[in-house]
């Protein structure tokens, strides 16, 4: 199989050269990008910053894509010498971590090698890359997409998933076979063509094969299913400002490390509806997932080898204190949640809106455990529990209420105020080891932007986070004690000289830590130069231990102290 792939790859790469020699002088186009990150580490016992044996970390990625007509091929060269702290420590060395060839015509497209794919909202299959988190579950195999008629797409793929990197790509033990069909009724059927309502329907089936024999539970010896199927149906409807998306998925019994090797089937539902018109947008969502985590290796957990993607119900925050201290990630064993969000712009030139209008947004999002009953005896060992309904269970996982208002006061001055309230269950999403239970936190942010003179602007963020208090016995007396690490303040100053320079200073201060010696300033400065698509920045200072999240997936990043140099470029 490997030699066949090599041959196919070689042929696919040579073919366009041969064609170009025979048919026309053009030999195609190359584009690429580079991303490099170099960090140095100094010991800092106060913040718990460790120094790895290599004393430095270096991650780098270089992509090249060759395109000629309907053909394209690409590769990514990667280096982890040694990986920066917070990245999977097992990534080592330099080599090609991604390569593909693709041929695309009007009615079909074929890809060999690595590729990323998503069916619907990803609940049954999503291979994707979040490079900043070290997540890359690219497929490695073959994909064929057929477009037999207008509005109809049939995707099929067979492959393994990227798991590790040790100077070369290392794939999953499991094999993924997947099919997806999607039809847009308006494009496919003439009588729907002029309808005001647009409807897209889709269905997917994904199967994983992984060798396995038996597992023992109490006195039972149970057969592991070697082939596990997962499937889903979805619908999307649009009419003017109205939109609806619904997806329902199921998975057969899939004993794995996430569910304690129980044989319960998986089920999930995702609903989202929105309505918007100029100046106003409303969005509501519901999510229920029960044992729907699906991996191409049943023995792995956390970030390794997910086949599907279960989005978090909360939104991703951007302000430092709101984004990194209590970030919510989906509880993959099961959860139920809903959200509602309103965006509104008070019209410009009105009394409240001012000269340029005033933007407001409000969101409420919550997720809880499932409403379940634990099974006893043999059923308990084999199936774990039964779900009674899609109602919320006893344990709150997250309640996130946020509000912001922003206004441009003049050509040279803008301001924004944002408020966040979190009730965050650190047992469900273990973001801290200092507190077990529900942390109540309020975050206030004031952001201003001032234009100093042509091309020069100063942006400031003043942030404060206040945690709730618990009654605790201290030296024989009951006292109010701050939850977790207590209160924080952040000040950010960012001075930009458009279009080439930026300078920033960030200070995070844990002024309310219950432990006085932990009331530390984390000061970090950055200077950067931008030249079109090329960007170089140099930073120095302390980075606190925290959680870094993208798209509802989070990774813990250890505390560090030192230099960081980053360079990104596209061409």
């Amino acid at each position, binding site marked *: 199989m490997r030699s066949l792939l090599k041959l196919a790859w070689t042929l696919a790469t040579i073919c366009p050269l041969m064609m170009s020699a025979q048919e026309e002088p053009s030999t195609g186009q190359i584009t690429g990008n580079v991303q490099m990150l170099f960090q140095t580490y100094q010991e800092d016992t106060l913040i718990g910053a460790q120094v790895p044996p290599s004393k430095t970390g270096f991650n780098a990625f270089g992509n090249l894509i*060759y395109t000629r007509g309907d053909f394209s091929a690409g590769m990514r060269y990667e280096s982890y010498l040694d990986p920066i702290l917070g990245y999977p420590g097992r990534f080592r060395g330099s080599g090609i971590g991604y390569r593909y060839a693709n041929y695309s015509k009007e009615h079909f497209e074929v890809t060999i090698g690595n590729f990323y794919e998503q069916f619907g909202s990803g609940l049954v299959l999503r291979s994707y890359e979040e490079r900043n988190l070290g997540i890359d579950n690219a497929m490695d195999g073959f994909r064929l997409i057929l477009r037999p008629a207008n509005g109809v797409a049939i995707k099929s793929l067979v492959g393994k998933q990227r798991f590790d990197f040790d100077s070369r790509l290392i794939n999953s033990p499991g094999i993924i076979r997947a099919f997806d069909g999607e039809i847009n009724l308006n494009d496919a059927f003439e009588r729907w063509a002029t309808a005001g309502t647009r409807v897209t329907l889709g269905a997917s089936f994904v199967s994983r094969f992984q060798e396995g024999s038996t597992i023992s539970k109490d006195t039972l010896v149970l057969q592991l299913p070697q082939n596990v199927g997962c499937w889903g149906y979805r619908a999307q409807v649009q009419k003017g400002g109205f939109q609806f998306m619904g997806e329902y998925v199921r998975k057969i019994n899939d004993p794995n490390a996430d569910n304690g090797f129980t044989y319960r089937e998986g089920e999930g539902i995702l609903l989202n509806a929105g309505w918007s018109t100029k100046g106003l*947008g409303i969005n509501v969502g519901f999510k229920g997932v029960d044992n729907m985590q699906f991996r191409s290796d049943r023995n792995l957990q956390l970030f390794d080898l997910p086949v599907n993607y279960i*989005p978090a119900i909360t939104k991703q925050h951007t302000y430092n204190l709101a984004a990194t201290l209590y970030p919510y990630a989906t509880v993959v064993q099961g959860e139920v949640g809903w959200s509602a969000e309103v965006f509104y712009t008070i019209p410009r030139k009105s009394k409240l809106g001012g000269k340029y209008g005033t933007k407001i*947004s409000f969101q409420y999002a919550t997720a809880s455990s499932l409403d379940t009953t634990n099974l006893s005896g043999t059923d308990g060992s084999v199936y774990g529990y039964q779900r009674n309904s899609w109602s919320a269970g006893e344990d709150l996982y997250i309640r996130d209420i946020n509000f912001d208002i922003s206004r441009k006061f003049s050509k040279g001055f803008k301001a924004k105020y944002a408020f966040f309230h979190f009730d965050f269950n650190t047992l469900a999403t273990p973001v801290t080891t200092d507190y077990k239970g529900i942390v109540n936190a309020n975050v206030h942010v004031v952001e201003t932007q001032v234009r100093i003179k042509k091309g020069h602007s100063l942006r400031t963020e003043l942030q404060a986070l206040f945690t709730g208090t618990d009654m605790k016995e201290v030296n024989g007396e009951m006292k109010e004690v701050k939850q977790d690490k207590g209160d924080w303040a952040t000040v950010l100053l960012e001075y930009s000289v458009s279009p080439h320079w930026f300078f920033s200073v960030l200070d995070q201060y844990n002024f309310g830590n219950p432990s006085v010696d932990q009331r530390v300033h984390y000061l970090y400065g950055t200077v950067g130069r931008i030249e079109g698509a*090329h960007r170089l920045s140099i930073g120095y200072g302390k980075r606190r231990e925290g959680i870094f999240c993208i*798209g509802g997936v989070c990774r813990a990043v250890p505390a560090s102290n030192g230099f960081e140099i980053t360079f990104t470029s596209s061409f």
Partner: protein
Amino acid sequence: MMIRNLTLLLALCCASVQAQEVPSIELKDLGDLTVDTRALVEAAEGPVLFCFWATWCSPCKRELNNYADLYPDWQDETGVEIVAVSIDDPRSMMRVKPYVNSVGWDYKVLLDPNKAFARAMQVNNVPHTFLVNAEGQVVWQHNNYADGDEEELYEELLKLAEE
């Protein structure tokens, strides 16, 4: 492995290095219509400005909100069409339309939830803005946004309009 790598290197060396062109990728717009990115550029009457952004990216929203005030003048003077390409993934994809309508952008907005177009355009991170001429070639790009960057962009737009 060695043969494969050498072959690829040979292919890349033989290819001509020229201005980056917009590839043909099919994306959905906010009305659920399928849009081919290459066809969009070919059908445009003037230059096209692709702005990669996300609902969770503050500088991206600052950039597009600032352009919104200037867009009518830019259109009159240079004929430019702004296309805002959202890389919001399934977690936030459904927030895009309500947000865009609430702030009243007059741009065409495309959804790129698994970054197929972003990868093909060599986008490392957002915001990343590409100015594309009538031939579909990238003539200017910028990876970042700070207030005032629109002045450099405006000069580039005027240069393109004069050609």
